């Protein structure tokens, strides 16, 4: 049996990779993907703990996270689309009309 901690390590690594992706990527689509990576890391943790404690609410939570994530990404992509349609940029650094 693979110990639960291994899954946790993996999920922590995935989570950190996701964070790094959000921070260093310049392409909006890739940032959204990185966030998905973070959420999937969370899913992994939930499933692991759910298994560990032998209760299922963790898995139920995963289902909800999946749905919410897709909704979030849906709105995010729609926004990217609106902006891209007006001006063909996907580079986040260009989005600085607002600030200070």
């Amino acid at each position: 049996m693979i110990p639960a901690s291994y899954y946790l390590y993996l999920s922590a690594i995935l989570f950190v990779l996701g964070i790094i992706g959000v921070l260093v990527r310049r392409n909006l689509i890739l940032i959204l993907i990185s966030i998905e990576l973070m959420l999937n890391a969370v899913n992994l943790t939930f499933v692991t703990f759910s298994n560990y404690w032998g209760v299922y609410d963790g898995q139920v939570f995963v289902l909800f996270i999946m749905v919410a994530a897709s909704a979030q990404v849906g709105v995010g992509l729609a926004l990217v689309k609106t902006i891209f349609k007006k001006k063909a940029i996907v580079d986040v650094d260009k989005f600085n009309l607002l600030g200070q």
Partner: protein
Amino acid sequence: MLSNFGSILFFLIFGAVFVCVNILLSRLLQTRNPYPVKLSVYECGELPEGNSWIQFNIRFYVIALIFLIFEVEIVFLFPWAVVFKDLGMFAFVEMLIFVGILLVGLAYVWAKGDLEWDKPEQVPSPELYRTDNVNSAVKITESVAS
């Protein structure tokens, strides 16, 4: 005896070695004779035209988004379906309402015309084509023709 991870490691190593050996073999055995047409992108015999990074029709995105939203709701339907027998009438009605709400959403999308294809075509902005790849592709075509 190998532990669970040991076997995975074994497969990983085996797979890696297999791929490497094959690539190495082809390297050793191949003959090299590159010319432009051979290097050009293969598009089912058609002449390659423009950059692959062009803007797809906006409809693709809309459809994709709508698909994404509706598809993901299946995660609720699936667990319900598994224990449907035990849950009885209440859960059935609940799920009917849930699907009903989704249908209202679908109807909304439909009525708003976001599932239609026959809308005026979006004209992709010309600068998207003006890339080096386009030029090189044109050159390749010319060289093939000559």
